[in-house]
C-alpha cells in the first residue's frame, strides 16, 4: 500500500514560476516583527535605535505600587499603629524635657532671690520698682525664693522621658522588623510574578527587546522598589505624623510662635513640589538608561568572541561610552536636583527657627512666655527640620521607586499570548495522528505566509519537511507546538483540535529538538534529565547511549558531571546537539519534532544517531526538518515547501520522478558530474516504486 492514499492532497507538481522563485518569494517568520515593532515599546538595541519616549504616569504607578501592599493589609495596619505610638511619644517627650528645663531655670532664679519672702511678695516688690518685665517672667515661673533646683522633680521628669523614649524606640524597632518582613514578601512575590509573566508572553516579545533590559527590570528595578518600600514608606509615615504632632504641640505651647513655624510648611511644600516634579523625570531617565546600558553590556559580553575577531572593541567601547554618558547625565541630574531638596527645606526651617528665636526671645523677655517653653519651642522647631528634610528625601526615594515600578509594571502589562481554553484531554496513550486542515497563518495580516495548507501525518510515520530556508518549515512545526495561533483552519492531534487542549498537555506529548542547541548551566546529566524530570538513571543512560552522548562523555574527565557553561568550550556544538537529542529521547514523547537536529553533528555520528532515531521514530509520528537529503530519503512523506505552501508531497522516489521542485533541490546537492549519475539511479528507484 502506498502512503499516497493517506495524504489528503495528491503529489503536486510545482509550477515553473513557483520553483524559480525559491529564493525570491521567501516569506519569513521575521517580517511581522517589523510591523509589531514600535519605537515606544522596544529598547534601543545594540546600535541605538530610536530612543523610547513614553509618558510618565506617576500617580497611577504610585497607587499601583501601594496596591502591591494590599495582601499585607493587617501587617501594614500594625506597622502604622506602632509608628503612631512611637511618634506620639517622641513628640510629647521634648515637652517634658522642656519642663525639666523649667525646673532648672526656676532653681537658678530662686537661688538668686533671698529666702524668707514668698514669690508673690517679690513680684509685687518688683512691680513697685517698675521692673514689670522681670515681674511678669517671674510670675510665670514655679519659683521658690531661696531654694535651688528641685532635683526630686527633675529626676522624676527625666525618668518619665526616658521611659517614653524607651517605649517609642521599642515600637520603632518592632515596626521596622514587621515592615521588613512584609516588604520582602511583597518583593519576592513581585519577582516571582515577573518570572511567571515571562512564561505567558508570546515569543515575539523577546525579539524586540534586549535580554539585559528585561533582566535589569527584574533585578535592578525590583531592588530599587524594595528600597523605596522598605525605607521610604515607613519613614514617610513617621515623618508626616511627626510633623503633625509637633505642630499640635507647638500650638499647645504657644500659638503665636506656632503660626510662625507653620509658615514653613506651605513654603517647604511648594519647594519640594517644584523640585520633585523635575527629579521624577530624571529618575525615570536614570532607570531607563540603566536598563539600556545593562542590555548593551549583556549583549557585548554575549557576543564577546565576535567583537574580538572583528576587532570592534574600540567601537563597542565608543557605543558603551555614549550610553554610559547618558546614564551619567541622567543620574547626575537626578542626584543633584533631589539633593537640593534637603538644603532648601533646611533653609525654610532655619527661617522659622530664626523667627522663633527672635519672637520667642522677645516674649520671654516680656514675660509672656517661660524660658522652658521657649527652649522647648526652639527644640520643636529644630526637630521640625528633620522630619521635613526626611520627608523630602523619602519623597525622592519614592519617586525613584515609582520610576522603577513603572518599568516593572510595563513588563507585567505586556500583551500575553491567548488565554487557555482547554476543554478536552488526550488519552494517556496518544497515537500521534496529526492533521492539518486548511491551515492559514501569517505573522502579519498583510503578509500571508501559510495559506490553506492541508496534510495528514499517520501514527508512526516520519514526515520530512524540505524547502529553501525561510519557506516556513520551522513555522509549520511551531504551529504544531502552538507557539503561535492559527488564522484559519485547524490542526488536530488524534482528532482533537489542539486549541481545545491546554498548551502544556499538548507540548507534553511532543518532543522537540531545535536548531539552536540550548542547554542550561548544569551538568550533562541534569541537562538530559531536563526532558523528563523523574527519569531514572537507567533511562538517562539508555538515552545517552542511544544518542551517542555516552561515547564522548566517557572521554570527559568529569563524565556526566561535566558542567556545561555558556561558552561551552568543553563540549563542542555537535556534542551539544547530541545532548539535546538525548534530552528529547528521555522525554519519550508521542510526537517527535526534529528541526535541523543534527546540523552540527558530523555525518558519521549522525548516521549512527539516525539509526537510533529510526528506532525511536517507529513508535511515534515524527516531523523532520533537515537539509541533508540523506536524512530525508527514508521518510514516509516528504513535504516540499516553498513560500509557505506545500508544492509537492510524496515519497522520495515519487517526487524525483516528478522532476519538479524536489528533484531540483536534490540534484543541486550534487553539482557537477555526480548529478547525472545520481539522477540515473534515482530514476531507476522511482520506476521501481511505480512498477
Amino acid at each position, binding site marked *: 500500500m502506498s502512503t499516497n492514499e493517506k495524504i489528503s492532497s495528491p503529489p503536486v507538481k510545482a509550477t515553473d514560476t513557483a520553483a524559480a522563485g525559491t529564493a525570491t518569494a521567501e516569506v519569513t517568520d521575521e517580517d511581522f516583527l*517589523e510591523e509589531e515593532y514600535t519605537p515606544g515599546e522596544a529598547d534601543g538595541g545594540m546600535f541605538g535605535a530610536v530612543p523610547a519616549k513614553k509618558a510618565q504616569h506617576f500617580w497611577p504607578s504610585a497607587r499601583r505600587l501601594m496596591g502591591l501592599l494590599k495582601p499585607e493589609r493587617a501587617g501594614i495596619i500594625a506597622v502604622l499603629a506602632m509608628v503612631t505610638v512611637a511618634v506620639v511619644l517622641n513628640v510629647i517627650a521634648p515637652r517634658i524635657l522642656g519642663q525639666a528645663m523649667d525646673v532648672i531655670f526656676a532653681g537658678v532664679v530662686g537661688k538668686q532671690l533671698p529666702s524668707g519672702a514668698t514669690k508673690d511678695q517679690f513680684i509685687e516688690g518688683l512691680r513697685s520698682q517698675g521692673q514689670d518685665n522681670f515681674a511678669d517672667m517671674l510670675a510665670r515661673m514655679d519659683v521658690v525664693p531661696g531654694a535651688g533646683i528641685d532635683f526630686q522633680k527633675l529626676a522624676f521628669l527625666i525618668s518619665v522621658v526616658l521611659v517614653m523614649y524607651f517605649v517609642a524606640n521599642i515600637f520603632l524597632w518592632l515596626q521596622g522588623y514587621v515592615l521588613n518582613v512584609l516588604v520582602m514578601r511583597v518583593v519576592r512575590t513581585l519577582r516571582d510574578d515577573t*518570572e511567571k509573566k515571562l512564561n505567558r508572553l508570546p515569543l515575539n516579545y523577546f525579539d524586540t527587546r534586549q535580554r539585559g533590559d528585561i533582566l535589569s527590570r527584574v533585578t535592578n528595578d525590583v531592588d530599587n522598589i524594595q528600597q523605596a518600600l522598605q525605607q521610604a514608606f515607613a519613614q514617610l509615615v513617621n515623618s508626616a505624623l511627626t510633623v503633625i504632632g509637633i505642630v499640635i504641640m507647638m500650638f499647645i505651647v504657644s500659638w503665636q510662635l506656632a503660626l510662625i513655624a507653620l509658615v514653613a510648611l506651605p513654603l517647604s511644600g511648594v519647594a519640594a513640589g517644584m523640585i520633585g516634579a523635575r527629579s521624577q523625570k530624571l529618575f525615570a531617565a536614570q532607570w531607563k538608561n540603566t536598563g539600556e546600558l545593562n542590555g548593551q553590556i549583556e549583549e557585548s559580553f554575549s*557576543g564577546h568572541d*565576535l567583537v574580538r575577531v572583528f576587532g570592534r572593541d574600540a567601537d563597542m567601547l565608543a557605543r558603551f561610552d555614549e550610553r554610559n554618558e547618558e546614564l551619567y547625565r541622567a543620574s547626575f541630574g537626578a542626584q543633584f536636583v533631589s539633593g537640593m531638596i534637603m538644603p532648601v527645606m533646611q533653609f525654610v526651617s532655619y527661617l522659622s527657627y530664626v523667627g522663633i528665636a527672635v519672637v520667642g*526671645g522677645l516674649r520671654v*523677655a516680656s514675660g509672656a512666655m517661660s524660658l522652658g517653653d521657649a527652649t522647648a519651642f526652639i527644640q520643636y522647631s529644630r526637630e521640625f527640620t528633620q522630619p521635613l528634610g526626611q520627608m523630602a528625601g523619602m519623597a525622592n526615594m519614592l519617586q525613584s521607586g515609582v520610576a522603577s515600578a513603572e518599568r516593572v509594571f510595563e513588563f507585567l502589562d505586556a500583551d500575553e499570548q491567548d488565554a487557555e481554553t482547554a476543554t478536552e484531554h488526550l488519552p494517556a496513550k496518544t497515537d500521534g495522528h496529526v492533521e492539518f486542515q486548511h491551515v492559514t497563518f501569517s505573522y502579519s495580516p498583510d503578509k500571508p505566509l501559510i495559506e490553506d495548507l492541508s496534510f495528514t501525518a499517520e501514527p508512526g510515520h516520519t514526515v520530512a519537511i524540505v524547502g529553501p530556508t525561510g519557506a516556513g518549515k520551522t513555522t509549520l512545526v511551531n504551529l504544531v507546538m502552538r507557539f503561535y495561533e492559527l488564522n484559519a483552519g485547524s490542526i488536530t492531534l488524534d482528532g482533537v483540535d489542539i486549541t481545545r487542549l491546554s*498548551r502544556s498537555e499538548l507540548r507534553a506529548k511532543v518532543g522537540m529538538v531545535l536548531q539552536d542547541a540550548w542547554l542550561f548551566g548544569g551538568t550533562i546529566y541534569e541537562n538530559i534529565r531536563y526532558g523528563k524530570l523523574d527519569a531514572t538513571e537507567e533511562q538517562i543512560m539508555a538515552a545517552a547511549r542511544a544518542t551517542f552522548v555516552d561515547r564522548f562523555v566517557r572521554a570527559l574527565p568529569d563524565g556526566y558531571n561535566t558542567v556545561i557553561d555558556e561558552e561551552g*568550550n568543553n563540549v563542542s556544538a555537535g556534542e551539544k546537539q547530541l545532548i539535546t537529542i538525548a534530552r528529547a529521547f528521555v522525554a519519550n514523547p508521542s510526537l517527535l519534532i526534529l528541526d535541523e537536529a543534527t546540523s552540527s553533528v558530523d555525518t558519521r555520528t549522525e548516521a549512527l544517531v539516525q539509526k537510533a532515531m529510526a528506532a525511536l521514530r517507529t513508535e511515534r509520528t515524527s516531523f523532520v526538518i533537515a537539509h541533508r537529503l540523506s536524512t530525508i530519503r527514508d521518510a514516509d512523506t516528504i513535504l516540499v515547501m516553498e513560500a509557505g505552501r506545500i508544492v509537492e508531497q510524496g515519497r522520495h522516489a515519487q517526487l524525483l520522478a516528478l522532476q519538479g521542485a524536489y528533484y531540483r533541490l536534490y540534484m543541486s546537492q550534487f553539482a557537477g558530474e555526480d548529478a547525472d549519475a545520481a539522477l540515473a539511479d534515482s530514476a531507476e528507484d522511482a520506476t521501481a516504486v511505480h512498477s
Partner: protein
Amino acid sequence: MLVTLMRRYSKPYLPYIAAVVVFQLASTIAALYLPSLNAQIIDEGVSRGDTDYIWRTGGVMLIVALIQVATAIAGVYFGSKAAMAFGRDLRRGVFRKVSSFSARDVNVFGAPTLITRGTNDVQQVQMLMLMALNFMVATPIMCIGGIFMALREDLDLSWLVWVSVPLLVVVVGYLVVRLMPLFRSMQQKIDRLNGVLREQIIGIRVVRAFVREPHEAERFGAANKELTDVSLKIGSLFVLMFPAIGMILHISTAAVLWFGGQRVDAGEMQVGSLTAFLQYLLQILMAVMMGTFMAMMIPRASVCADRIGEVLDVEPSIHAPLTPVTPAAKAGRVEFRNVTFAYPGAEAPVLSNISFTAEPGQTVAIIGSTGAGKSSLLALLPRLYDADSGEVLLDGVPVTQLDRAEITQRVAMVPQRPYLFSGTIEHNLRFGKPEATDRDLWEALTVAQAADFVRDKKGGLDSRIAQGGTNVSGGQRQRLCIARALVTEPKVFLFDDSFSALDVATDARLRRALKAKTADATVIIVGQRVSTIADADQILVLEDGRIVDRGTHEELLESSTTYQEIVESQLSAEAVA
C-alpha cells in the same frame, strides 16, 4: 579594594571634591554657628531684656542661614557630579577590562556575574561615593566642631561626649561586622537570580517545548527565596540600628539635663550654656548617626568593590605583544607549526601537533567527527585562544607577535553559532567595517545569497534584527553572518561549519559565488558535508585533535578509510559511484 578603587577612580575629580570640602566646610560652620547665636539671644538678650540685641542677632542668624543653604547646594552640586562621574568611569573601567578578556578569561567568571559586576556592583560603590561626598566632609566637621563648641561651653560635662560617642561607634561597628558576610552572600544571590533568568530567556523555546515552565519557576523561586532570605537577615539587623542610636541619643540628653542641672545649681554653669551644650551634643550624635548611615553602606559597597576589583585585576591571558612585528606582506598566508592546545582544566589536549599551510588563493577544508577539535583549530588564528606549544603564523609572523589590528584586518570569521547583534541588518553588516558603502553591503549580500530576502523585507537593510538574530531563520542568520565577513574583504576567511543551516541548493549557489569572491584569499573551512569541501585544495581529516589524513578529495577517497567512512555516511552510494 574599596579604598583603592575610590582613590584611583576619583583622582580626575579632585578639584570637584576639593570644592565639596570647601562648600561643606562653609555650610557646616554656618550650621554650627546658629545654635551659638541662639544661645546669645537667651543669655545676652532675654535675660537682660535687651530687645535690640535680640533683633540684631536675629538678623545675623538670617544671613548665616542664607550662606548655609547656598553653600550646601553648591556642595551637593559638586558632590553629585564627582560621584556620578566616578561611577561612570568605574563602569567604563570594568567594560573596558572585560573587552580585553580572552574567551578563557570570560569563562572564568561567566557572563551573568560579569554583567552584575558591571552594573549593580558599580551602582553600589557609586552610591557610597555619593553618600561619602555628601556627608563625609560635613560629618567629621559637625562632629569635631560640635565637640569643640560643647567643650567651650562647659568642660566638665565633656565626659558625656566621651561616653556616648564611643558607645555609638561600638554599636554601629558591631552591626557592620555582622552585615559584611551577609552582603557578600547577597551579591552572589543576585548573580544567581540574574543567571537563572537569563538562561530562561535564552532557552525560552526549549522551556516551552518541554513544558518546563513549572521547573523553571521552581529554579527561579529557589534563587528568589535565597535572595529574600539574605535580604531579610540584613533587614532585621538594619532595623535595630535606628532605635539603638535613638536610645543612646536620648539617654545622653537626659544625662546632660541631670548633671548639667547640678552644675547650674552649684553656680558653675550658666543656663544658656546648658541649652547650648544640649544642642551641641545632639549635633554631635546626629553627625555620628549620619556617619552611621554611611557606615551601613560600606559593607555592601566594599563587597561590591572586591568583586569589581577581581575583574579589574585579571591579567588577560592573551596579551598584545610588547614589540609587534609588522609582516612584510599582506597576503593571508596561514601556517600552523606543531600546534598543541588544551583548554584550561582539561586533561587531554584538544589539538595535538597540528601542522599545515594554507596559501593565498587556496582552500583548506577540515573535516572530522564531532568534538575532534575543528572549531578550536580555527579559534587559534584570531587569538581567541593561544596555542600551548607550536606556532600559528600569519604571513610568516607568529600571531602572538602581531598587533591585533594586523590580524583583524586580515582575518574574518563566520562562527559556528551564527550570532547577530540587535539593531538593523545594516548595522550588523557594517560591524566589521563601519565605512563600507551600501554597494559593498549589497555585493556581500548577493554573494552570501541573502540579497533576495533582505530586499524582500519591508525595511530592507533597515530591517530590525533581534538580539542573537533570533527573528530570522537559521539559514538566513548564517547567510547574514557570511555577508558580514565578506564586507570586511579579508585575506583569510574562516568558515566554521557555516553552511549547515542552508538547504543544499542555496549552499551550492553560495559556494559558487564565494569562489569568485575569495579567489585571492585564503579560505579555511570546517564542514560536515562532503559536497561543501570536495573541491578544496587540501582536506585535513581530524580525529581526536590530530590530523590523520590529508589530501584532495580524490586522493583521500583512495587512501583514507576515515574519509571514506565520512563520505559513505552522507553521499548515497550512487552519488559516490
